């Protein structure tokens, strides 16, 4: 078979690997997963001029400092280049991406890779920054010393890509060395684990870097200057707080208009479908089931994209590591490290990428604790729930100083999640995940101008994942819920105020569960909505929408969900519902990703149990206190 040759991009984190990958493959890339692990597999087609006929299959491997893997991400890189990763053939050649401004450090890894015996080309990336930093690098000398071609690239300006293409095409034409052919490379593996060999390699790399580099003036001046302000003990935390504030403000303010458009479009579709179709089951399925359910989830796409935009921006510029630096000591009080800050921040968008981002935490106990508390960060899927309940039950008035009571409530719900996470981490660290951590050890890369293309590609991939979810899991769960609510049909002469709940399968199920939830103030409709919310938390809103839209008479259908809730829930019930969602244990995707990341059912079940317990207690306490205070 004549397959396109496979070339792997390998390099230290912050070497500009992903920018190079984006520059070489453009939009011709696919993001998937390696089987059995949640490490992202990014492949793309690279079509260099006069390259192989079928192009080159380029795979972007997770960044790592060495092949001696310290995290699951790094393990994938190790296994792929060793030809031992299921779901990936061994690469035919390697492109080692090296940051030209950090040669003494990155060459260490190149020396390691060279021992593998695979055809290799070194891409000396960020060559422009090196020049700006006053570094002259002797390309020919470096290439001679390493015995492999070295090509200067500036990925973000698309420079050196053709030369790189020619070098890789030539390298692919060479037969691989003998060690590479036997595949096992036991000697290479032994050398990786040997500390003395590792230090020797570091020394050799520094000597080599020194011999090919001429430093004309002091480097990293911009980064130093920025860091003096951004890491200053006083201004640093203030700037971080401001950035986070702007970020969350933007999630609400900027998203308002596009969310309105999406709502209007769905409303128009519902109205057109109602007008076109006769009043039958199919119309009910489309209007009450699909459009209502999926629509109430798609509406959050703008907010999710805005949040991810900020996260990608902060990651690309290099600010995220500064945030981790500033937060480390605070996180240490809860037994975590600054490293956990990035996954936890991502969890405000969604716990799934957040939990996946914990792979960069080397210490297993730190990582497990971070995974277990990630669902307590208020993910964007909880926003719709908060938004609807707040709009219905919290009066829209000012508490002074231009702060609205509704906004304040939302803010307090976020804070409640964070406080709960810290307390949970503290308790977990003293019980199930006790033991000393590995502390905090992290590279802080130079600041970089963010690249619009890289951010847009990242956003596009996020949007696709979200829409895929809406089109599959959420669509299916809404249709199932609609069916459970619609069958068996209520007799036409039913005198019930609420025929769907009285006669349907769903009504029967929720009646069975209601005794569990009645003590915390939940009525049958809420119990019912919690079941499909297992698929995704935001479905709780669409489920309530479906429940109330199916049970209502003509007049009730005209009312919005907010008005309907206001007329059928008491305030203590609404507050208890909000408190429940601070913990909201029911998200199947989170449980599934936790199972994959922790390799078993123990921790996801533990997570489910402790979140469920907390949610029940919090909802109960809120309900009882609110009732006692006479809010009912």
């Amino acid at each position, binding site marked *: 078979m004549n397959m396109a040759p496979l070339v792997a991009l390998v390099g230290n984190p912050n070497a500009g690997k992903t920018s190079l990958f984006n520059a070489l493959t453009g939009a011709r890339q696919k993001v998937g997963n390696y089987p059995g692990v949640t490490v992202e597999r990014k492949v793309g087609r690279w079509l260099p001029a006069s390259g192989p006929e079928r192009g080159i299959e380029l795979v972007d491997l997770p960044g790592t*400092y060495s092949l*001696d893997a310290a995290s699951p991400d790094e393990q994938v890189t190790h296994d792929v280049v060793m030809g031992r990763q299921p779901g990936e053939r061994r690469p035919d050649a390697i492109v080692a991406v090296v940051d030209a401004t950090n040669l003494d*450090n990155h060459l260490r890894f190149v020396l390691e890779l060279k021992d593998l015996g695979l055809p290799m080309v070194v891409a000396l990336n960020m060559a422009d920054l090196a020049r700006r930093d006053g570094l002259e690098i002797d390309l020919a000398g470096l290439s001679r010393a390493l015995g492999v071609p070295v090509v200067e690239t500036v990925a973000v300006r698309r420079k050196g890509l053709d030369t790189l293409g020619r070098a890789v095409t030539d390298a692919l034409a060479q037969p691989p060395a003998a060690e590479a052919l036997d595949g096992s490379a036991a000697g290479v593996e032994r050398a990786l684990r040997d500390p003395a060999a590792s230090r020797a390699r570091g020394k050799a790399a520094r000597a080599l870097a020194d011999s090919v580099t001429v430093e004309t003036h002091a480097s990293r001046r911009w980064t130093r200057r920025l860091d003096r302000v951004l890491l200053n*003990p*006083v201004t640093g935390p203030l700037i971080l707080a401001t950035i986070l504030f702007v970020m969350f403000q933007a999630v609400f303010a900027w998203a308002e208009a596009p969310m309105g458009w999406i709502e209007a479009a769905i409303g128009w579709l519902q109205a057109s479908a109602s007008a076109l179709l006769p009043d039958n089951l199919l119309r009910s399925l489309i209007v009450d089931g699909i459009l209502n359910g999926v629509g109430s989830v798609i509406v959050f796409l703008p907010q999710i994209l805005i949040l991810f935009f900020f996260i990608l921006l902060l990651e690309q510029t290099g600010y995220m590591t500064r945030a981790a630096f500033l937060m*480390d000591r605070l996180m240490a009080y809860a037994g975590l490290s600054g490293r956990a800050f990035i996954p936890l921040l991502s969890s405000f968008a969604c716990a799934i990428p957040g939990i996946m981002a914990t792979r960069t935490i080397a210490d297993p106990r730190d990582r497990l604790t971070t995974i277990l508390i990630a669902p307590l960060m208020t993910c964007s899927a909880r926003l719709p729930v908060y938004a609807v309940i707040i709009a219905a039950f919290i009066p829209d008035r000012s508490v002074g100083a231009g702060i609205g009571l509704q906004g304040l409530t939302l803010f307090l719900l976020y804070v409640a999640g964070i406080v709960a996470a810290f307390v949970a981490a503290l308790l977990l660290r003293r019980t199930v995940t006790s033991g000393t951590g590995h502390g*905090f*050890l992290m590279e802080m890369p130079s600041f970089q101008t963010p690249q619009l293309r890289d951010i847009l590609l990242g956003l596009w991939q996020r949007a696709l994942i979200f829409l895929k979810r809406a089109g599959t899991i959420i669509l299916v769960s809404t249709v199932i819920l609609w069916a459970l609510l619609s069958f068996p049909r209520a007799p036409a002469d039913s005198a019930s105020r609420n025929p769907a709940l009285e006669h349907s399968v769903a009504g029967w199920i929720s009646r069975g569960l209601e005794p569990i939830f009645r003590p915390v103030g939940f009525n049958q409709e809420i119990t019912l909505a919690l079941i499909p919310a297992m698929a995704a938390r935001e479905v709780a809103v669409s489920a309530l929408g479906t429940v109330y839209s199916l049970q209502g008479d003509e007049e009730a259908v005209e009312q919005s969900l907010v008005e309907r809730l206001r007329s059928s829930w008491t305030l203590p019930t609404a507050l208890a519902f909000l408190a429940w969602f601070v913990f909201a244990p029911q998200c199947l995707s989170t449980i599934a990703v936790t199972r994959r990341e922790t390799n078993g059912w123990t921790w996801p079940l533990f997570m489910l149990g402790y979140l469920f317990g907390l949610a029940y207690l919090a909802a109960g306490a809120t309900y009882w206190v609110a009732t006692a205070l006479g809010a009912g």
Partner: protein
Amino acid sequence: MTTESPSVNLNALAVDQSATISHVDWPSLDDATARRLQEFGVDEGISVQMLHHGPLGRDPIALRVGRMTIALRRSQAMAISVVPPRP
């Protein structure tokens, strides 16, 4: 007269102060930390510069090693002894 400066703990360096690593107590570090420090280029004879102190308890610290900036906690830096240049 050329006397060696006495070695001090890395944590004792003031912001912006440079020094040369005289000794790393590798056995006192756990394997993962030791390996990562080596990967970051920390080794005896290497010159480092203290760049920043964290906002709470001046922890963690940011250190310049070669052309790289790394962050680590004071508890980890305890293992590293340095010799500041003589004034």
